[in-house]
């Protein structure tokens, strides 16, 4: 990959534009900007195969997490259950579509797209797809990665199961369904996937002619 010398040794802080000299770092150490303490870089520790494994695990959990019941209520002999997807629909039906869109974007769409985006990136890197079309796609995926990871809020959803369950335990018996387990696992897998993923590192894999 052709690169000029100063690109390798000097970096600019993204928050305050200070020029910092890049130095070799031991693993698990993060370089902070000396002026504004924004995280600058760390040793990229992303193994493409590890990410692929996590991606596949995430996809396996994604489907049951969204379509199996997460919360069950037993009330006077009748059982009601809801899935993540249905909960958003229920709010939409009540006329609060902004809330519904926020819920479905943060809990269903963004995590799903995030997994698919990383999977596609891995495939492009692993299969060395260097044609213009794939490199364009790769760039587009990387550009939108920040947005997707900011939008997916699985950890908050996991906490909200508990809050909702405790909230409702006043009125009736609450059971957490199989969906909750899958959703919890999905959250864990994505947590590790994002730990492994390094955007800067992925950018460096852009194939330049």
């Amino acid at each position, binding site marked *: 990959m052709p690169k000029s010398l100063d690109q390798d040794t000097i970096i600019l802080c993204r928050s305050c534009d200070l020029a910092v000299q890049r130095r070799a770092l031991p693993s698990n150490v993060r370089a902070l900007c000396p002026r504004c303490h924004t995280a600058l870089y760390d040793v990229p520790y992303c193994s493409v195969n590890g990410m692929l494994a996590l991606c596949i695990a995430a996809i396996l959990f994604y489907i049951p997490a969204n379509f199996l019941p997460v919360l069950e*209520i037993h009330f006077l002999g009748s059982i009601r259950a*809801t899935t993540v997807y249905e909960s958003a629909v229920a709010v939409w039906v009540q006329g*609060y579509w902004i809330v519904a869109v926020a819920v479905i974007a943060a809990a269903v769409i963004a995590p799903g797209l995030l997994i698919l985006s990383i999977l596609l990136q891995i495939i492009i890197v692993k299969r060395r797809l260097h044609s213009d079309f794939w490199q364009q796609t790769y*760039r587009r995926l990387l550009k939108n990665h920040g947005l997707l990871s900011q939008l997916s809020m699985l950890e908050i959803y996991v906490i909200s199961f508990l809050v909702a369950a405790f909230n409702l335990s006043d009125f009736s018996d609450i059971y957490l369904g199989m969906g909750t387990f899958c959703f919890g696992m999905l959250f864990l897998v994505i947590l590790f996937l994002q730990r492994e993923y390094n955007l800067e590192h992925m950018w460096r894999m852009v194939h330049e002619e």
Partner: protein
Amino acid sequence: MTLCGTCRNINAISDARCSRCYSKIQPRNEQSLQQSWALLITAAILLIPANIYPITMLTNQGKVTYDTIFTGIVHLVHSDMIPIAIIVFTASILVPWLKIAGLAIYLTAISFNLPISKKKLMVGFHIIEWIGRWSMLDLFVIALTVAVVNMGQLLDAKPAPAATAFALVILLTQLAAKVLDTRLLWDRLEKNNDTN
């Protein structure tokens, strides 16, 4: 040299497009301050209906009660669920208010060159960026509750007007933080030549 706003690649200031991701190069986004202010003010206005109006409507054996964010938390405290109450209080009252106040301080500091330590402002900004997502908690809880509790007159939960306002507050504050080009703060620092 300047950073590409999208992929953080280093480019010459004279370049029109980033050599790596082909997006347009903008050394500074001067408009971002104004955009950020606009989003923040809208969010601050919406924060009032979000807190005054009820956010959920609960029918229990024919009796309808409306809950605002605050009375919901009071209920939790009364039913001895203090830890849950603390989580909900942090997510739906503390975080939005702190975020709006924090961003307002941050933006005034840039706009009027206030002599506040830039380092402290930056730490605050990172906290705001990170913690802002947690406000979504309340919306998730509402959605789950509404979906699972619908048994007509016996027990029924519905969202109420504040839910939309609250959703917009979260959305707009997140955008306000994202839109802002934090390098503007440090540029002013260099102009003023103060050392904190």
